[in-house]
């Protein structure tokens, strides 16, 4: 490593991040023109950035954010709670239920619903095979797991891949 490499080292990252002053930029570019070691270091920085950034860019390009705003609204609604007094008052106020024009149609509706739904409850249709996935559940405390199911090839793949801290591969 040349002596000047150590003096360029800190400026190299600033140069890579486009945060160097004009003077620093000029010094770095002059040094890079004939220092392969620093060129390789710059390459390493670019490679690392690519591994961190490229998948994020790719994910964002494909992302349509389905129903995200609706889920946010729902989350906000769920967080809103009535004040304790309003809760108590609404809980105690049962009087509307006892009006004839409420309970008679309500009872009639309940009876009709029971008559219509009871055959469905007792004669529940089992979902056909094609509606169910082959894998009911999978768990592993050691591996990360990916499941690939395909109807066409009549094959299901459960693939285990190791995080670096998991059991070491067989030699």
């Amino acid at each position, binding site marked *: 490593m040349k002596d000047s490499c150590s003096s360029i080292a800190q400026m190299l990252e600033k140069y890579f991040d486009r945060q160097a002053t004009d003077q620093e930029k000029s010094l770095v570019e002059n040094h890079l023109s004939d220092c392969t070691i620093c060129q390789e270091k710059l390459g390493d920085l670019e490679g690392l950035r690519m591994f961190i950034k490229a998948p994020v860019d790719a994910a964002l390009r494909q992302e349509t954010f389905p129903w995200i705003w609706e889920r946010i609204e729902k989350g*906000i609604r769920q967080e809103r709670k009535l004040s304790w007094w309003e809760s108590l008052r609404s809980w105690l106020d049962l009087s509307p239920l006892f009006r004839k024009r409420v309970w008679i149609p309500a009872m009639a509706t309940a009876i009709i619903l029971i008559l219509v739904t009871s055959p469905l409850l007792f004669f529940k249709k089992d979902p056909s095979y094609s509606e169910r996935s082959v894998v009911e559940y999978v768990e592993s405390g050691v591996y990360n797991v990916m499941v690939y199911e395909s109807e066409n090839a009549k094959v299901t793949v459960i693939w285990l891949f190791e995080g670096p801290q998991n059991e070491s591969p067989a030699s």
Partner: protein
Amino acid sequence: MNDKETELISRCQQGDQDALKEIFNQYHKKVYRIAYGVVRHREDALDVVQEVFIKLFRSIKNFKGKSAFYTYLYRLAMNTAIDHSRKAKKAVFFSLDEEGSFQPSDRPEKRPDQIVARKELEEKVRWAIDQLPQDQKATMIYREIEELSYEEIAEAMGCSVGTVMSRLHYGRKKLQDLLRDIVNPVRNSSGV
């Protein structure tokens, strides 16, 4: 902060959800980038985005305007994403049919083993990022993914530019060591 943004924030602080929606429209992609940069998983990143804007609506009353709004939001996004990534690993279920081409041999990148290889690489990168101390992790994400300037990162993290540069330097060094085999496999295998 421009006047329009100031007005939106003020309306949001008073509980106006339409104002929140406008803020969401403006910033959700940036929040997603930060979230994905940390959790490296689509569904988790979308959960983080949802959580960030719900938290924002709850906490925006605390925003006093002393810093830029986006640094406040980025800090919220980063903390939420890091908290989310601390949760236990879970199995990844997906059907390659959803990835597009069902005939795996049609396009090499759609083959299960290629997708597995990509997922393994992603997992390795996520693991490596997870090994960084929180401050280094956040600094790396802000710089490498959002390409914030040193000053912007310093404002988002409440530190000096010198501290930002130091965190970047040590964060990059650690990641290069952890990802040595994949960042530069040819050079590293030849021992250079």
